[in-house]
């Protein structure tokens, strides 16, 4: 890759890294894991950069790699598991109730991987149903059911004890 492309790529990473890490945090549940995931996705994006950039598809490309990598991880015959770093790397939120945001990330972890990804992409990033379906590699109907079930499940998980069925 030439210097121009490298600079272009570096500019893209600088502009998007915060959003990508925030997506990855929701998918993985920890910042170190999120950074590992983003790193993997960006390394792949780098290889395909000139072609992907020409198409203007860099955001979709990197999101797709991240989501599929996160989902596939749990399906491998061998997988990596980590122990006991919960809490150490979480930055203090500048607003809101810490219990709420922490509980949300924990509750997301209770969802199946595709539901977790669907709700983040659809309702935080704001992707359309079709765009979300493309990232996940599923039909638009499946995206709708994933997001609906995810929100319902999150509601149940986050409701104060005794207030849900």
């Amino acid at each position, binding site marked *: 890759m030439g210097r121009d492309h490298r600079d272009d790529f570096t500019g893209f990473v600088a502009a998007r890294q915060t959003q990508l890490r925030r997506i990855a945090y929701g998918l993985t549940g920890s910042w170190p894991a999120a950074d590992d995931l983003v790193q993997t996705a960006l390394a792949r994006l780098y290889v395909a950069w000139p072609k992907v950039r020409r198409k203007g598809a860099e955001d979709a490309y990197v999101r797709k790699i991240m989501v599929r990598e996160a989902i596939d991880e749990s399906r491998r015959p*061998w997988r990596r598991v*980590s*122990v006991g770093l919960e809490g150490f790397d979480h930055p203090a939120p500048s607003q809101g109730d810490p219990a709420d945001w*922490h509980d949300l*990330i924990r509750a997301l972890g209770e969802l199946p991987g595709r539901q977790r990804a669907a709700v983040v992409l659809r309702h*935080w990033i704001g992707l359309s149903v079709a765009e979300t379906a493309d990232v996940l590699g599923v039909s638009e109907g499946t995206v709708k059911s994933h997001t609906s079930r995810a929100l319902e499940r*999150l509601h149940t998980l986050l409701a104060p004890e005794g207030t849900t069925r």
Partner: protein
Amino acid sequence: MTPESFSTMYEAATETPPPTNLAPSAVKAGRRRLVRRRLAVTGAGLAALAVVAGSAYAGTGLTEDSPDTQVATPGATADDQIIERCRTLDGNSEEAVDAVYSVGHPTIVARAETPDQTTYVLMAADEKVWAECSLPRSGQTSPTLTYFFPPGPITSSGVRHFLAPGSSLRTAAAVGSGCALVEDSPDPGCRTFVVRVTDRLPAAVASVAFRTGDGKTTVVDRQASGFVLLDHVGELPDGVPADPSEWGEFRALERVTYLDADGDPIAAGAMDGSGDPMKDERVAGLRSLEKYLSLKSNPEPGLIDEVR
């Protein structure tokens, strides 16, 4: 929950990520990947990358011989032969090989033997990268090389974030089927599982107790070089399927406990086996493992005290 309320909560939950230095690391990692691909395309004989860097556990079968059966190279020491064998394993990631071998001749700094295999820790000549290499004796696991890169910068909060591929502060294990794969899936008749850990821990941790899903606890001493290696093959309990993706509630590795020189527990972490750190549990009455952060990525002296 409505889409709007989810968005608001997610925004608050993620709005302050810890500092990072992602761009330079991403370019570096991408360039390595690009070089690998070009070499592959030009027929340099490099195998396709089959694993994610830093997670090089493929479990793909039993094709390698024991190091004991190698043909000796005149003038080469036993360690030299092992180091060379690790470099040329079929399951290697080219990225791993490049990272460990490109700066000079690596050395073996730790080893652990089990009835099934010997795991070696190789330190790169510049001591910035180390890798693990497992050579099977009887065919429980495939030989692979995995590696860990040096760390990223220390942030103002004292928390170090590892951005290079495969690097992390997380104490991690690899868990999987104890048998070779059949058409890329675990043999349904397989009744064993494997837990592998190669970690590097601070001196305050004298040994580590691993409680595995077969109800056994294995205590492994920290070696002089700081490395802790576990390679446990256990029997799957009745009713637990062979395929790890169907394990459900089964936890291959249930608990990790750090012990001091007197054998007393000083920290512990429990896990639910899903591979998802969000689902891990705390162990009542003990500090969490984060108090003795893994040195797998070779952080600079003082970091551990700073984070503690």
